[in-house]
């Protein structure tokens, strides 16, 4: 068997690619390699790019990456697109906007399908971040699926979350204000040359001012105007990311963020593994079918069943 962990640390893109596939497939073979990569993680800075479908996330990711490369930084990109709920297939099209990056050895791009996972990311995205981190990428850019209102998982992974807004979607602000508008560390008004951009800029700026008024916050999200296809405003975006990074580092928030992430991840892993084991046992001997039958026929309640299963498992 190949030593993928070692190969990843030595910089083999092929080993990284295969390990990522295992993580996506929830293949148990990934575990020992991840265990050995873990000490080498935590160096990369993680930037999230989120926003509605068609907002320009891929184009922005391409330009941002290009700008970072000019600074000599290496970049890993994780681009998430939705899986079909009907066939399980997916068209992953984000690379179309990133063609020029595909042969740059300082860039590694991986497309991921959500595979039924909600929240704007794929289930394994956090693990893939760790692989690219250990692989030595300085910056990891995560591009979420096109989001609506509350696909906000990105904030659990990203150090800096950029929310991309565009004019012309009418009541964008109205429809987004409840969930996704709250998660931005940086607001990006993309397609800023289009009609309505000034109004959108004014609305977002007002919102940021209101937020500061309602509750004092240590960080005020800047509002950056870009025209990604024309490569305009990208320098300002890079500066905004750098400023936020400095803020996180100097205020100790970055460390706090990462501690919280480690805590959530650990709990989630335990949750996943416990569930996997219990389900394996329940389904192996037909117990689950019998249980479901009893519940459907009202001979037993699902609440009782749940308590019984957990109690029995804990005893064993």
């Amino acid at each position, binding site marked *: 068997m190949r030593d993928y962990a070692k190969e990843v640390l030595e910089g083999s*893109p*092929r080993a990284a*690619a*295969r390990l*990522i*596939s295992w993580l*996506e*497939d*929830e*293949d*148990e073979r990934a575990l020992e390699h991840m265990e050995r990569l873990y000490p080498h993680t935590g160096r990369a800075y993680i930037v999230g790019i989120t926003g509605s479908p068609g907002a320009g996330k891929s184009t922005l990711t391409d330009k941002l990456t290009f700008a970072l490369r000019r600074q000599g930084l290496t970049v890993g990109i994780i681009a998430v697109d939705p*899986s*079909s709920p009907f*066939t*399980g*297939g*997916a*068209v*992953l*099209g984000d*690379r*179309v906007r990133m*063609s020029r990056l*595909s*042969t740059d050895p300082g860039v*590694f*791009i*991986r*497309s991921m*399908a959500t*595979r039924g996972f909600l929240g704007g990311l794929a289930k394994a995205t956090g693990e893939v971040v760790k692989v690219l981190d250990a692989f030595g990428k300085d910056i990891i850019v995560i591009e979420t699926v096109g989001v609506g209102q509350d696909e906000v998982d990105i904030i659990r992974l990203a150090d800096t979350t950029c929310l991309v807004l565009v004019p012309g979607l009418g009541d964008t602000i109205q429809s987004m204000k409840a969930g996704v508008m709250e998660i931005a560390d940086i607001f990006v008004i993309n397609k800023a040359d289009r009609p309505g951009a000034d109004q959108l800029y004014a609305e977002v700026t007002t919102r940021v001012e209101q937020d500061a008024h309602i509750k004092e916050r240590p960080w005020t999200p800047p509002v950056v105007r870009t025209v990604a296809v024309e490569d305009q405003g990208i320098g300002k975006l890079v500066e905004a990311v750098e400023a936020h990074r400095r803020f996180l580092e100097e205020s100790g928030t970055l460390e706090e963020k990462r501690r919280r992430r480690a805590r959530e991840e650990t709990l989630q892993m335990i949750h996943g593994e416990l569930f*996997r084991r219990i*389900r*394996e046992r329940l389904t192996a001997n037909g117990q689950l079918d019998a249980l479901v039958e009893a519940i459907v026929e009202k001979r037993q309640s699902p609440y009782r069943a749940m308590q019984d299963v957990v109690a029995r498992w804990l005893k064993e």
Partner: protein
Amino acid sequence: MAQDRKIKIIVAKPGLDGHDRGAKLLARIFAEAGMEVVYTGLRQTPEMIVETALQEDADVVGLSSLSGVHMYFFPRVVQLLREKGLDDVLVVGGGIIPSEDVPELKKAGVAEIFGPGTPTAKIVEFIKQNVRARD
């Protein structure tokens, strides 16, 4: 619990012709068949396609050409894949390919060529039967 293995396929247009209707349709057909399709867009060099296949850990590379550049591009993709150690990646081609070119392409390592009018179910079936088993 391990998930079902999904076939990952790159759909790429090498060369300079700008006709991607067929390639886009095929991308959708492969997705409809449950595959994860990485669509690269137009004007891809063999190097770009192979680097994409490497990073995406693709099982299949599907190449479409309508402009007569297949005799250079298709074998070059196969060759570069081999150089990168990706010799278990299935390469298939389609588009406007004269039938007299097919034997040479196959000799160069292209697994199959699908001309215009091929029932798409046949392409899907071929891929499912010939795709590598991922170790």
